[in-house]
C-alpha cells in the first residue's frame, strides 16, 4: 500500500493512541480501494441495510462502555460510503470490537460486528500497521491454531502469562503433566494441544489453509510467522506424501 508522508494526527482519546501507534494518511483513491475490498465481500450486503440512528447497538455494545467506540458509527459510515471515515475506523476503531454480536439487536437488521469482521480482514490483507499493532503479542496464538488445530493449549497456562488470573494458574502449570494424565477422556492427555488430533486431520487442515489463501494472508501481517508456518506445514505434507500446487 502506498502512503504519503503525512501522518494522521492522533488524538488522546482515539483507539490508535491506546494502541500506541500512528498511521499514515493515504490518497483518497487508496481509501476507496480499501472500501471496494469491503464491498466486494459477499457477506457485506447481508450485514448492512441502512441505519435508524436509534443507538440500540451502542446500548448493547460492551466495547462502547469502555472505549471511544460506536457500532452505530460503523454502520453509518458504511451506509453513507464515507470512505474517509471508514479508513479512520479501519485504523482506529475496529480492534476495539468484542465480536460478541450484541449489536445484532439492531431493529434494522444491521450487523455492525459483521461489518467489522470484514473490515478487519481487509486491514490484515493489506498489512495495515494498526492491524499489526493490535495483533502484537497475539501472533503466537495464530501459530498455535494454524499449526496444531487448537486455539489454546494447557501449556499456555503459565503464571507469568496470566498473572491476573491468580495462583490457580501457577498450580496448574506446576502439576500440568500429572493433572492432564488424571483426565478420564483418552483424548485429553495432551499438554501442547487442547486434545489429541490425528495426523491425517492435521494434514487436511494444512491443505485448507493453503488452498483458501488463509496462509498467504499471514505473509502481509507477519512474514517471519508466515515462513515458520510454511516450513512446519510443508514438512508434514512432505512426510505424508502431499505435493502442493
Amino acid at each position, binding site marked *: 500500500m502506498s502512503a504519503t508522508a503525512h501522518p494522521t494526527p492522533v488524538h488522546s482519546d482515539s483507539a490508535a493512541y491506546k494502541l500506541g501507534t500512528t498511521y499514515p494518511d493515504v490518497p483518497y483513491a487508496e481509501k476507496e480501494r480499501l472500501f471496494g475490498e469491503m464491498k466486494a465481500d459477499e457477506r457485506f450486503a447481508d450485514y448492512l441495510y441502512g441505519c435508524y440512528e436509534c443507538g440500540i447497538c451502542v446500548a448493547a455494545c460492551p466495547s462502547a462502555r469502555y472505549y471511544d467506540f460506536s457500532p452505530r458509527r460503523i454502520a453509518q459510515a458504511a451506509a453513507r460510503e464515507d470512505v474517509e471515515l471508514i479508513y479512520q475506523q479501519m485504523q482506529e476503531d475496529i480492534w476495539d470490537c468484542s*465480536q460478541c454480536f450484541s449489536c445484532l439487536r439492531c431493529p434494522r437488521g444491521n450487523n455492525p460486528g459483521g461489518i467489522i469482521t470484514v473490515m478487519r480482514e481487509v486491514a490484515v490483507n493489506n498489512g495495515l500497521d494498526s492491524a499489526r499493532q493490535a495483533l502484537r503479542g497475539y501472533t503466537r496464538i495464530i501459530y498455535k491454531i494454524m499449526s496444531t488445530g487448537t486455539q489454546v493449549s494447557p501449556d499456555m497456562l503459565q503464571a507469568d502469562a496470566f498473572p491476573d488470573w491468580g495462583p490457580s494458574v501457577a498450580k496448574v502449570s506446576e502439576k500440568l503433566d500429572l493433572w492432564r494424565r*488424571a*483426565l478420564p477422556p483418552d483424548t485429553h492427555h495432551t499438554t501442547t494441544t487442547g486434545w489429541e488430533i490425528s495426523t491425517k486431520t492435521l494434514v487436511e487442515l494444512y491443505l485448507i489453509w493453503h488452498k483458501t489463501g488463509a496462509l498467504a494472508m499471514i505473509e502481509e501481517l507477519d512474514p517471519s510467522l508466515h515462513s515458520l508456518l510454511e516450513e512446519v506445514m510443508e514438512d508434514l505434507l512432505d512426510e505424508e506424501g502431499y505435493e502442493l500446487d
Partner: protein
Amino acid sequence: MAIPVEKVAGPRRQNKAEFQWSADQAPADFHERLFELEERGELVVQRVDTEYMEVPVKYGRTKKVPIGHTWHHKSCGQCGHIPGYSTSIFWVNRKLGIEYEDPRDQTSCTAWNYYASATSNAAAQAAVAMRNFAAAYETGRFPIIHCGTSFGHYKEVRHEILAHDHLREEVRRVMDALGKPLVLPEEMVHYSEWFYAMRHEIARHQVRDFSKIAVTVHPACHYYKLVEGDAIYDPEVYGGQRTAIVSGVAEALGAEVRDYSTWFDCCGFGFRHILVQRDFTRSFATQRKIKRMKEEADPDVTLTHDTGCVTTLDKSQFAARAQDPSFATIPVLSEAQFAALAMGAHPYLVCQLHWHAADYKPLLEKMGIDHEKCWAEFEEATARLERGEQQYLTWEDTDV
C-alpha cells in the same frame, strides 16, 4: 414447573411489551434452502436418524436434538484450560448409559482466532467447518458442538454456504481435494441443548439436593445472538421472552434461578482482548456482570454454557479481589458441571474444579459435598500415577 415471565426484571417489566411470535416477522427457515440444495445434488444433508427429542426454538419452531450416537465436537478452551467442562459432558452421557464418540479426527472451528484476528477468510472458515462435518458424517454419528462460538460460527457458515453459490463452489473444490463430501447437518446442535432436552432425565438421576442453591445464568452471546433462529426459546421459561437455555436445566434440578439486570450483556471475552488486552475483559466481566449479579441476585453460583464465558467470568475475579478486598466473588461453572454434580459426580476427578479460579468451596459445602475428603481422594488417585501404578486415570477411577 415453569419459570414465569413475571420473573424477568421484576416491576420494570410493566413498561415493556412482550414479544409475540409472528410468521410475518420470522426469517425464512433455513431448512427449505438446505433441502432444495440436497435435492439438486449440491450437498449432502446429514439427518437426525436416531432417537431424538424435540425442543422449542425461536419463532415457534422446533428442533431435533439427537440423544445418542453423537460425535462430540470439542472446544479448544474447554479441553485446554477448563477440562472439567468436557469431562462433565462425557460423564453425564456415560452415567445415563448413552454412547458417544470423542473423535481425534476433529480440529477447532478456528473461530476464536477468526473473531480475534481476522487472519482467515470466509472460504477457509467454511472449509474447516465442512471438513469437521464430513468427518462426523463418515462415522455415521451426528455432530454435537461443545463450544458456543463454534455453534454460532457454524450457523453463520451454514447461512453463507446456502446463500452464496460462489462460496459453495469454492468450498466444494477444497472438499473434493480432500476426498470428502460437502455435508451439512440437518440441525446445528449445541451440547447445552442436549442438556436442556435431557434435563428431566438428568433430574431423575439426581442424588444431591440443590433446592437451597441460588443461581444466576449468563446466556452466551454466540449461542443466541448469532443466527438467533436456532436457539431454544421455551414458553415455559420466562414466557419465551428470553432464551431458556441453562435456566431450564437449573430449574429442573431444583435450584432457584435469580434474575439480574445485565443478563443480556456479554461476558467481556472479546476473543482478542482475553488474550492480549485483558484490562477491558477484566473490567467488563467484574463490573458489568459479577458485581451486578452479586448486588442484585446474590447467587451461590453463576452458570453459563460456553468456553469463553466460563473462562472470562471465572478468571477475571482474582484481579478485582486483589484490587478491592471487599469485592465479593461468585463461583462460575458450566451447567454441565452443575448437572454432573447433581448426579453425584466427583468435584475433582470428574468436574476438575481445581482448574477454576474463583472460590467454589462454599458452593460445594452448600451442596453437601465434603471437598477436603474429595481432594484427598483426588490426591490419592494422582499419587498412583506418580508411583507408576497407572499411566492415566480412567472413567472407572471416577467412581469412588
